[in-house]
């Protein structure tokens, strides 16, 4: 079936099998492999992307369900060579090690700050309940998000 959506600002139309998951569409059809797959039970959040500006686990959505939507993946976050403030904060605070959960974690964090622009530590931690990281122990991820919230350039934008 035909599906059309805007991915990182570029409209595209493709023919897909109905069962094709959004994450596979993004990775294999659109060639955007930055969005990772870490589980098969909607548990880990590695595949988090923004659908119409909100965080969604792209492994739990059919590509067809995104018809007409605006999708932002990790590849669409930076502005040219300039990292998005959230990416910058993750780097500054060593909020990543192996980097596999990172794209999903960053997208979840961007969505979180849209909803709660100035969160407490507890709100950040609860807001990340759907994203698992095995390397960092979350300490520096939380620090990065708290710092991004304070950054002059709005990290949620």
């Amino acid at each position, binding site marked *: 079936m035909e599906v059309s959506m805007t991915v990182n600002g570029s409209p595209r139309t493709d023919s897909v*099998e109905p*069962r*094709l998951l959004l994450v*596979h569409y993004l*990775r294999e059809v659109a*060639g*955007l*492999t*930055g*969005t*990772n*797959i*870490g*589980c*098969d*039970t909607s*548990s*880990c959040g*590695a595949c988090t992307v923004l659908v119409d500006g909100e965080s969604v686990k792209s492994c739990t959505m059919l590509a067809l369900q995104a018809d007409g939507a605006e999708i932002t*993946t*990790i*590849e669409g*976050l*930076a502005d040219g060579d300039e*990292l998005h403030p959230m*990416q910058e904060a*993750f*780097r*500054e605070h*060593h909020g*990543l*090690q*192996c*980097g*596999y*959960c*990172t*794209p999903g974690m*960053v997208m979840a964090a961007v969505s979180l700050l849209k909803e709660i622009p100035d969160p407490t*530590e507890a709100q*950040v*931690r*609860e807001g*990340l*309940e*759907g*994203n*698992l*990281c*095995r*390397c*960092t*122990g*979350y*300490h*520096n*991820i*939380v*620090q990065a998000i708290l710092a991004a919230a304070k950054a002059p350039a709005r990290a949620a934008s």
Partner: protein
Amino acid sequence: MTAVEAAPRAGGVLGTRLRRREDPALLTGEARFVADLQVPGTLHAAFARSSVAHARIAAVDLSVARSMPGVVAAYSGADLSDEWSPLPCAWPVTADMKSPVHLPLAVGKVNYVGDALAVVVATSEYAARDAADAVVVDYEPLPAVVDLEDALSDRVVIHEDLGTNSSYTWELNPDQGAVDSAFAAAAHVVSARYVQQRLIPAAMEPRGVLVVPQPFGGDYTIYSATQIPHILKVMLALTAGVEETRLRVVAPSVGGGFGSKLNVYAEEVAALVLARKLRAPVRWVEERSEGAQSTIQGRGQVQHIELAAAADGRVTAVRVRLIADMGAYLQLVTPGVPLLGAFLYSGVYDVPAYSFSCTAVFTNKTPTDAYRGAGRPEATYAIERAMDALAAEVGVEPVEIRRRNFIPPEAFPYSSVAGLVYDSGNFVGALDKAVGLAGYEQLRADQARRREAGDRVQLGIGVSSYFEMCGLAPSRVLASLNYSAGGWEAATVRVLPTGKVQVVTGTAPHGQGHETSWAMIAADRLGISPEDVDVLHSDTAIAPYGMDTYGSRSLAVGGTAVHLATERVLDKARSIAAHQLEVAEEDLDYAAGAFSVRGTPEKAMPLAGIAFEAFTAHNLPEGMEPNLEASTHWDPPNFTFPFGTHIAVVEVDTETGAVRLVRYIAVDDCGNQVNPLIVEGQIHGGIVQGAAQALWEDAAYDADGNLLSASLMDYLVPSAAEVPSFETGSTVTPSPTNPLGVKGVGEAGTIGSAPAVLNAVVDALSPFGVPDITMPATPERVWRAIREAQEARK
């Protein structure tokens, strides 16, 4: 030796919190993991796996699978048995160790749920998965062996040709008489049985492999999500029967390992064999639930530990008996894992007598192998839990019992009763600092107040003073333990004609930040910016020699190799500079990337200029080879021994049994720190993995050998919402084992934290008289323990 704060060395880059160069690619999605690689014409493999724990295979019917759309081929184990040799086990710990034949695809019999028995290759991943589901297997079920003590009984023997479920018994018994007399004379004896539940390493990136053949050249490039590209190349050559010169192994971006990617897996061998057979690129990417069963698991031990102590609580002997769960087969280093703990059951304590024995058994479960800490967390858990039990027995504080038994700082280098020489340590220094950071007295006062008030939510404070052996390892020591490989590491440093520096390392980072740290090591010595140093790794065509990354070895061995190769480059540069400046080498100073003549600083040659001279080779000292490059293969003289004290604070809801980790204080000493930012990150992540063993994670099997927690829905890897921020500190006691004075930090956090958290839980419950909780301390277990203790008191 005294504890000192980690501080950047004046003028140098070592010890600074340099931001990681790895990050931009990882933060923007540009980094390429195996599953991201796209090669035209790639075929996708999917495996059919046993759904039963123990059975004879009566028949494997591939006819439906073969007929499905997109399917190129389907094979059973029997179809491919001429294509490969059994998977390797590189650690035959005893001469009489029993090791079953372990083929990439099972033939005749399956021995655990998840045992691969057929493979389907198709033009898409979806088609391959559909077809693998359509493989029909006719099983003749056999009783499953799940429990370790039951396995020992040989009631059902899994590998009939071996005649027993016991793989080996390994003993370390330097002086049995001393142990016996210590127990006979003991004023206090603590005897405990602890269960190390199985854990799933759960690196966030599942495993994956892509083999790209060149059908007319006979060469294969293997891209694998592995920690060990170098070892894998050797082992693939041996198991798949391909000349090593025809293999190139690349570990691209690798998303964590924790030991789970320190192996030679069936799927890697199968992908190579299939690519050879089908003359096409073949890719396999693991699914999470598949990996829970087919990737190695960690821990899996029953520990019996006994302490003998004098009236004042001084430990006089430690006796340990282990049963270790090998799972259904021996993977690469499965049998050796308990041995890595065997030397550590006396902990940080001055123990005069020691006896250890381990019996390893086969069960109908996923094979175990090295998981973050590998043997050392188990040992540390046992001794640190037992020390708390001893404290209770003697009637002193947990902190006090440790102080009374620590090896004193002045005793280093210290020859341990288990036969190791500990390089350096200041255990009391780390303890004092942790106690200070925690506000220990205040915590105890708060605890007393809650106890007195009979609060529903009680406070628990747990202390763990750990240490571990890492920097794996002196090759001769590995030989004495029958490990089949060495423990050296290789490095090459070259200064290119433009003055930029390339470091080639045999380590294989997968999150540890070696590109940043190795650049810092070389740059610091060369007096240049780390930005001018590039680090190459994880590709056997670029870095032909290496022993890879595991066992907290990379910095102490690989980082030291980089340092030594840099020294050699400088030596050569010095010779060239002396030759061209026409002075003696001794008259040259080296600073800020240039040699200058002492007393005449305007006579100078920058490193870049020397490199260009070495490149043109127009005017080199007589007999000197061109180019500015040097290599080392460094074999360390000893292990390194990081240590520290961790303090966990938990709140236990005594009504529901819920445990909340509210504070965590960690003081770690890993010797000199190259990059404290990275050190802290390693500690943070390690703490959560250890706390997860204490509170959440459990690879639980039912009596039929089914894994009950095969997804991340049921296997409870904690999220940010379950853990607090951490309060960390460090002391610095340099290791004399290597010129950098470094120890290693990759596993320390995990080793220290499980006992700290469990000690805290048991501490919270001490008013109820609860002596122990089996890990993980689930709410139900805590609730039951309280209830049983209350009933026992009635």
